[in-house]
């Protein structure tokens, strides 16, 4: 059976070429012409899997081609691996971190911070010419090997494996441990005992949950953040000042504000201005870390907000979104549902709590930057008690006008699996909105069992 590849239509080229450049951390610029060339010539050759028209990608012959920033996030995703390699060639430092944390201190210390998903993306992109099946097999192979090397099954194990195997030039492992996820902590512990010792390890010890109102906890975490920056400086050989940290906070606050405004703009629309995948990829830019390049994310985010505002003003509906779709809010770490297949079944994803919690958490810009960062981090809504997290989630559900809520936890994600039921029960009790709890296997393609449950939930709505 031949593989059909999606091609961007020349019909939209002119509009795309009128859009903005992307500016990167190192000051380099890529023009729309160069992006167009990559997406239509180089990209499909290097990463045919990303252009494959198949069930997993919704059997759609096109993406939202009239939304230039949709193409730009596609470009940033496809070039991620190459950009990380080039950054390393230039001597840039790269840290392996936890998901769900802001990266302001790493930006201040001139270090690229990659959460587990991005580490996997970097590794995935090193091999070219793979169709979607081959690319997935490659990821699965790493995961299975990591299960055996670590001797337990967790959802995010690729990072451990790639560092231990020396697949990726990661300089330092420095996550906020005990933050929302048990698996990265397990991985860090496995690193401590792993055979490869030349990668620096630093645990930013996040005080056990629910300490946001305790000054000692804020001070303690602030001290940890200082030590983190010191460790990053040991790797880079530079000296990061408090002023650098404050500047990083200001920069990331700009991203967080824009990301929040973009999401609220999207929610304010009578008809969804983008489909689920585009909404997610644009809102995710708010944390400025998703593409391993803060400035690139910021420049696309600024432009995206302009386009979304225009669409909302003109009542433009996102590509392949049906009339009056059922609006679904997704809860849980490192999870999601297949946007296009769920849209085909009559729904649209209007929000997620993961990554959104810290996007909505602005950091105070005056005073001790470490204290301010620590205070905000301890206040992340996602990290609060079940009751508090549920109430914050209810606010987001109401703002997004969701019709239903699906809490997903990955196989092996013990933390989220444990809190799923009580959170969902509170949401159900206080909003009356239908909810569903759903278990996924991270990174698989054969998701018929899961999609069946999602479709049944959509039909129920």
């Amino acid at each position, binding site marked *: 059976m031949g593989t059909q590849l999606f091609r961007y239509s020349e019909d939209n080229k002119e509009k795309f070429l009128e859009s903005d450049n992307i500016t990167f951390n190192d000051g380099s610029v890529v023009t729309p012409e160069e992006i167009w060339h990559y997406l239509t010539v180089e990209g499909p050759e290097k990463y045919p899997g990303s252009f494959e028209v198949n069930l997993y990608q919704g059997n759609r012959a096109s993406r939202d081609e009239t939304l230039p920033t949709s193409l730009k996030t596609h470009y940033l995703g496809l070039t991620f691996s190459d950009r990380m390699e080039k950054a390393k060639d230039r001597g840039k430092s790269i840290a392996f971190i936890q998901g769900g944390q802001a990266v302001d201190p790493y930006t201040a210390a001139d270090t690229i911070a990659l959460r587990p998903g991005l580490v996997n993306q970097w590794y995935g992109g090193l091999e070219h010419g793979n169709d979607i099946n081959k690319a997935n097999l490659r990821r699965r192979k790493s995961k299975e090997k990591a299960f055996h090397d670590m001797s337990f099954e967790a959802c995010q194990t690729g990072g451990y494996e790639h560092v231990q195997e020396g697949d990726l030039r990661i300089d330092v492992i420095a996550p906020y441990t005990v933050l929302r996820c048990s698996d990265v902590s397990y991985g860090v512990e496995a690193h401590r005992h792993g055979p490869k010792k030349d990668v620096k390890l630093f645990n930013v010890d996040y005080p056990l949950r629910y300490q946001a109102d305790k000054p000692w906890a804020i001070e303690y975490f602030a001290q940890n953040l200082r030590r983190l920056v010191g460790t990053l400086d040991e790797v880079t050989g530079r000296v990061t000042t408090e002023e650098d940290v404050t500047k990083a906070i200001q920069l990331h606050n700009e991203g967080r504000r824009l990301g929040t405004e973009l999401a609220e703009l999207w929610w304010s629309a009578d008809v969804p201005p983008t489909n689920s995948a585009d909404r997610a990829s644009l809102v995710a830019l708010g944390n400025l870390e998703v593409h391993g390049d803060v400035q690139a994310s910021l420049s696309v985010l600024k432009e995206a907000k302009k386009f979304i505002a225009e669409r909302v003003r003109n009542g433009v509906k996102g590509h392949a979104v049906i009339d009056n779709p059922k609006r679904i809010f997704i809860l849980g770490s490192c999870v999601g549902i297949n946007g296009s297949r769920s849209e085909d079944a009559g729904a649209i994803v209007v929000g997620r709590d993961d990554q959104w919690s810290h996007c909505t958490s602005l950091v105070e810009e005056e005073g001790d930057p470490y204290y301010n960062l620590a205070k905000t981090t301890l206040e992340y809504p996602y990290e609060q008690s079940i009751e508090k997290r549920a109430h914050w989630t209810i606010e987001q559900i109401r703002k997004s006008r969701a019709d239903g809520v699906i809490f997903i936890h990955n196989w092996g994600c013990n933390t989220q699996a444990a809190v799923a039921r009580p959170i969902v029960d509170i949401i159900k009790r206080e909003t009356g909105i239908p909810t569903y709890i759903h278990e996924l296997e991270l990174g698989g393609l054969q998701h018929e069992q899961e999609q069946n449950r999602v*479709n049944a939930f959509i*039909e129920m709505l």
Partner: protein
Amino acid sequence: MSLSENFFAGVDVGSLAAKAVILKDGEIFATGLLKSGVNSVESGLSALNLALDAAGLKKEDLTYIVGTGYGRVSAPYANKAVTEITCHAKGANYLHPTVRTIIDMGGQDCKAIRIDENGAVVDFAMNDKCAAGTGRFLEVMAEVFKVKLEDLGAIALSATDTVPMSSTCTVFAESETISLIARGEKPENILNGIHHSIANRIAGLFSRVGITSDVFFSGGVAKNSGMKSAIEQALKVTIVRPEIDPQLIGALGAAVLARSFAKKEGLWAA
């Protein structure tokens, strides 16, 4: 037969069986049921053809077809695809409008479904990806004991004791069963334990969605009297079993939905 009559079909292609039901003017007119093969399109079509032959109809005589079950994603003969959860709800409501809770145990999954007076799903839960607690699990056990699948329930009901099963993974349970036999446990007592272990899994699903009477049992496993009894004990309820083959409920619900979709789309007027 008058050509002005309206026929609607539901085709349910599951992991173990393909089923079809044809409705004529709202009444069950014909059914078809066979073991499903690897090719879900062919399995669905074969079940549909069985029902068509029994009805003396051709496919062109059908006003609307709804496909359901795992084969619904590749059912070119169907006008629409709907999940089996929705279809079981509609099928149970069609047969017993007072039903509010459904236990559906099929080949590879089991479902706890709560419905309203119109047969709309209010809440549901399903087993995880593991096939433990499903028809396939019982098939494996029937093979271990070298007995017919349909006799398993009666054998379990003849037990004098219940042997606890510490594992509910299909593959591991098989090896555990073999070691229990080697230990000298009576087959009927082991089978009773297996039925109770599955029933407890089902009860766990209902802790999520709740139970409201009447409770209805559908799917191939509903033919098993031992399982019905074990679930009744676990849930402390009396179960209503359908008058027709319980494997057909999904296809029946799909046919009911076909009638309703055809009406909505102006293809038929009541």
